[in-house]
């Protein structure tokens, strides 16, 4: 704060007056940002709200135009969803958790070898990992189908675990690598001098620093795996069909289905929202790692 001394000249407004005006300007600026933030937030939230509201409507009230906001809520559609989603959510959970654990277990040493003690040609490996994401999945689905068929893995949960792990691994390696680069070199050197070997170095020194990053990486893998539809649709039928497949099966050939679909979609979103809620603090810390020194 710089102190401004009023000169007493009549053209100069008193200090307090000017200060008050500056304060007012700051406040209006803040209010502007707040309003903008809320508008954007609500714009993103409206479709979700719409989905949840529709899920509680009777099918007859769901498709009216203009939309009705007064209706007698019903749990009929949810009852219908709960009666049929059991195996689907089970498959989704197994594929998601299985693939995410696999991703972290594989990405951690890979990221270590690409950051803390970079192997020869780490740049090429890093580019290779991300290049696998450049091919559209559609282009690979033919060969994937044939391989799955020959390996007797069609319509198997193992296939989804492997594919989802492969799908998320490049991103996870890139993310975890960038978190590991944040570990101060001196700390690793101190650990070396203190006599920590590779394992101790990772478990005692690196892991505590990157753990918020690991949580956010895992969460992103969970979301991607949970919401994946294309591979599940093409490579599974019943034994490994996942929640997104359940959503598709909620659309009947004829008749009204919007309320039923909304209820199913709401149920499908809940686990991701819960996981996200729990991981919120780590997520923010992880995603902003390195942003604040």
């Amino acid at each position, binding site marked *: 704060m710089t102190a401004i001394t009023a000169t007493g000249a009549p053209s100069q407004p008193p200090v307090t007056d000017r200060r008050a005006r500056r304060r007012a300007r700051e406040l209006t600026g803040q209010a502007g940002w707040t309003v903008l933030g809320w508008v954007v937030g609500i714009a993103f939230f409206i479709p979700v709200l719409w989905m949840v509201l529709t899920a509680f409507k009777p099918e007859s009230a769901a498709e009216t135009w203009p939309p009705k906001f007064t209706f007698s809520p019903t749990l009929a559609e949810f009852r219908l969803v709960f009666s049929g989603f059991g195996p689907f959510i089970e498959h989704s959970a197994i594929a998601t958790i299985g693939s995410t654990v696999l991703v972290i277990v594989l990405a951690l040493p890979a990221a270590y070898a690409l950051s803390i003690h970079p192997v020869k040609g780490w740049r090429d490996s890093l580019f290779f990992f991300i290049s696998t994401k450049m091919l559209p999945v559609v282009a690979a689905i033919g060969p994937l189908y044939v391989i799955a068929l020959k390996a007797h893995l069609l319509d198997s949960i193992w296939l989804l675990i492997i594919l989802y792990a492969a799908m998320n691994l490049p991103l996870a390696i890139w993310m975890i690598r960038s978190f590991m680069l944040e570990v*101060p070199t*001196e*700390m690793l*050197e*101190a*650990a*070396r*001098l*203190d*006599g*920590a070997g590779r394992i*101790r170095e990772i478990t*005692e*020194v690196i892991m*505590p*620093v990157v753990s918020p990053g690991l949580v956010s990486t895992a969460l992103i893998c969970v979301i991607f795996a949970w919401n994946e539809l294309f591979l599940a649709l093409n490579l599974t039928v019943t034994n490994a069909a996942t929640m997104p497949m359940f959503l598709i099966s909620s659309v009947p050939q004829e008749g009204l289905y919007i309320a039923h679909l909304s209820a199913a979609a709401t149920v499908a979103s809940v686990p991701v929202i819960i996981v996200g809620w729990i991981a919120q603090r780590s997520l923010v810390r992880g995603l902003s790692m390195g942003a604040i020194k």
Partner: protein
Amino acid sequence: MAGVRYVGASRVYAKGASPAVDALDLEIKDGEFMVLVGPSGSGKTTALRMLAGLEPLDGGRIEIAGRDISDVQPKDRDIAMVFQNYALYPSKTVAENMGFALKMQGVPKEERARRVREAARLLDLDDTMLDRKPKALSGGQRQRVAMGRAIVREPRVFLMDEPLSNLDAKLRVQTRSQIAELQRRLGITTVYVTHDQVEAMTMGNRVAVLAGGHLQQCDTPRQLYDNPVNQFVAGFIGSPAMNLQTVPLTEGGVRLAGTVIPLPTAVRTAASQAGLREIVLGIRPEHLHLANGSGPVAGEVILVEELGADALLHVRLAEDHNLVVARTEGRKPPAPGQQVTFNVQPDDVFAFHPETGARLAG
């Protein structure tokens, strides 16, 4: 207890580049506090890291207690290092930080706790602090924890890499004397790296001045100040720095500010043997004595820096128009713009070779 010896130790970072440390020969006695000092890029930190085992040697060897440890793993060298940014483990408590090396050595838990408490007491870290995380400590406390982590190990050699540079000025001066005092008490051989020549002078039993990967001079602070072997050491040690000017040789001495400063015969002989027509003349600021009447060296005061006890006069010399700094008594310094004259004792001047920078024997 152990001494340390660098024998022709070299480190080259990239092929074809000039060595960061070039054939360093340096002997550090058992229990000695040795300071490595130099400007950035002088190789002082590299030399320390070579001793720590964090940099491999590209030539020569390093010995601790007479044993070649060039290829020994850092953890087996029986050393402890204090890093510039402390490098504390953020997820561990202070006690865990300090005891980590012991834990790695498999020291039992009770023994570990005892040694940690002992080190904490040495450093005035109270018990409540031991359970805190580094994040909850002030800069000065973190510095002490980093020291504690080194002390707990009871190593044969302490390595310190600018451990005070992250502290504010007041705390730095205070911690400086504490570290020096602690080292005398523990009697553990210490190698201390700094770029601050005041730290070097005040802390070290001996100081090794490095520049460009070469050892310039290694001696006691007093000797470095009174008998620098070359122009670099003369200019680096001392604050404010020695006044160094290239001046022409004349009959019986050198010409400075329109007057002749006499030089000892030995210096004159050395200069004429080298076939020199001019030399670099060095005068410490406190050796420019403000003359009451008229002294031989005249000039005009440009700027006065008041330090309290002393004042520093920035003076433009007559004729040469070169700037020199003179230290004078602080009470009544001359004002800027005032004409002043100085007396210079012939014994107080240094003479250096203008090309090689070597001291001309005096």
